[in-house]
């Protein structure tokens, strides 16, 4: 219960002020009764639950009293924090259903003298720095201020224990971590940056969209074309963070190179594996439809057909991994059909899918990885419930992954399972793979 102090010392006034939420005590009966009610209702607990957890009282000359977890701290050069300013609503992670699955804390810095310091910051628990684009839980309180003894115009953040965290601006492209020397303390001219603590909507990693603006989620089974194929990190950073380390973790070997290793270390196909390649040899020799690589597992079938109308169809058996590398798929409605039974994984590497109707049909719980090459063109993806689709861009010079996107129509709780599927695909040892041209 809230305690009324018989002697109103300064400390007790501060305590009472804290109990009602850092608001100055009222001067009339009704206001005082309201504040008593608030104090009682909150049980005398000075800390309200998030987002109001942690507050400060501004004093004169830039000093402030910080309250956190029942302790008070005196700060100097305090800068007010507007909890509503700078709220960035452009965040557009989106599931196919548009469902928000949760929230995470982050801070939004805006108005800094150095514009590059603006942005969303997350606490990197490994380095202790506030960095952009990495998601870690935040302490419940933060503050930005100029720090005494340091050059004017340099700003710092502190958590509730007043541990200072410098926040950094990226001085040049290509430096992604604060450990790199190119990062600098954010500095600049007045005004001081505004720092806002927000709860960032946490959507499931991406989805497919039915419009080129990526505002309308695709419905289950809807065909989407190249315009709806995600291409920008700023909309899919969550998938980036999740997928990229998975692909890079294979003994440091870039994914594309690793796949290449698979293809060049292929053993003979076991006699029990039934593979039918019905592609017209004349067309193969012409160079237009060559370099199709298919992997199957014992006891299941894979069949490739090229029709008189230039349609190539790949059928898989149940739960079959498929790798298709290089080449240009012909126009006229080529189809990659992942099995309607079982859970398939398919890997399409480089090359160009047909610009006039290559379709990738998937039933549920399949995986499709698209690495490099041209866009889907005029074709489309037919994802289904539970499918996961990854698109990976790589640097042609050094074959390192520069972009990775993950799309899925599966519930967020199953994302990890889907990533396991991808990991299995990339670790497939090629024992049963072969290729023909």
């Amino acid at each position, binding site marked *: *219960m809230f305690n009324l102090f018989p002697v109103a010392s300064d400390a007790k006034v501060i305590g009472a*002020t804290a109990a*009602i*939420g*850092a*608001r*100055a005590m009222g001067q009339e*009966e*009704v206001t005082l*009764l*309201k504040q*008593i*009610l*608030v104090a*009682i*209702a*909150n*049980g005398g607990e000075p800390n*309200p*639950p998030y*987002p*109001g*957890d*942690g*507050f*400060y*009282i*501004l*004093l004169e000359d830039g000093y402030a009293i910080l309250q956190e977890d029942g302790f008070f701290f005196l700060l100097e050069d305090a800068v*007010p924090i507007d*909890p509503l300013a700078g709220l960035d609503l452009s965040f557009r992670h989106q599931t196919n259903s548009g469902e928000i699955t949760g929230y995470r804390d982050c801070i939004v810095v805006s108005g800094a003298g150095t514009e590059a310091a603006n942005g969303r910051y997350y606490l990197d628990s490994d380095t202790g720095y506030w960095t952009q684009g990495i998601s870690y839980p935040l302490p419940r309180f933060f503050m930005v201020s100029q720090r005494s003894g340091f050059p004017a115009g340099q700003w710092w953040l502190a958590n509730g224990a007043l541990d200072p965290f410098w926040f950094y601006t990226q001085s040049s492209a290509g430096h992604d971590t604060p450990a790199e020397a190119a990062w600098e303390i954010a500095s600049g001219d007045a005004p001081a940056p505004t720092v806002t603590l927000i709860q960032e909507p946490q959507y499931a990693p991406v989805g497919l969209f039915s419009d080129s603006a990526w505002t309308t989620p695709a419905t289950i089974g809807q065909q989407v074309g190249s315009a709806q194929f995600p291409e920008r990190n700023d909309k899919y950073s969550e998938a980036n963070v999740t997928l990229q380390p998975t692909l890079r973790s294979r003994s440091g070997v870039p994914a594309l190179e690793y796949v290449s290793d698979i293809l060049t270390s292929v053993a003979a196909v076991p006699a029990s594996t039934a593979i039918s390649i019905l592609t017209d040899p004349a067309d193969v020799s012409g160079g237009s439809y060559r370099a199709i690589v298919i992997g199957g597992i014992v006891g299941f079938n894979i069949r490739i057909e090229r029709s008189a109308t230039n349609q190539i169809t790949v059928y898989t058996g149940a739960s079959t991994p498929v790798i298709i590398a290089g080449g240009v798929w012909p126009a006229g409605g080529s189809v990659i059909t992942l099995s309607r039974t079982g859970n398939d994984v398919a890997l399409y590497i480089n090359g160009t899918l047909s610009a006039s109707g290559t379709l990738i049909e998937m039933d549920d719980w399949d995986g499709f990885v698209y690495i490099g090459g041209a866009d889907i063109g005029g074709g489309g993806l037919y994802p289904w419930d539970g499918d996961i689709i990854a698109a990976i861009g790589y640097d042609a010079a050094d074959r390192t992954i520069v972009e990775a996107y993950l799309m899925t129509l599966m519930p967020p709780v199953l994302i990890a399972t889907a990533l396991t599927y991808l990991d299995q695909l990339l670790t497939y040892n090629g024992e049963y793979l072969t290729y023909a041209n």
Partner: protein
Amino acid sequence: MEAYPFASDAKVAATSALIGQPIGQQEVTLLKQIVLAMALRAGQTPEVALGGTPIAQTEVLLLQQLLVLVATT
């Protein structure tokens, strides 16, 4: 001393949630709500906390009830 209002807004919201109604604008209403909040904080209904007596309607009686609650809850 300039106070920062944000946390207070959260507490006002929490208070309204606890008493199940917006915070009142009049003294009598506020006193009733204080009685209600104290009783709820103590895990009781106001009637139970006040020994079977309903929440009063006048300031003096409400202050008496508050005194009882302060002493007993």
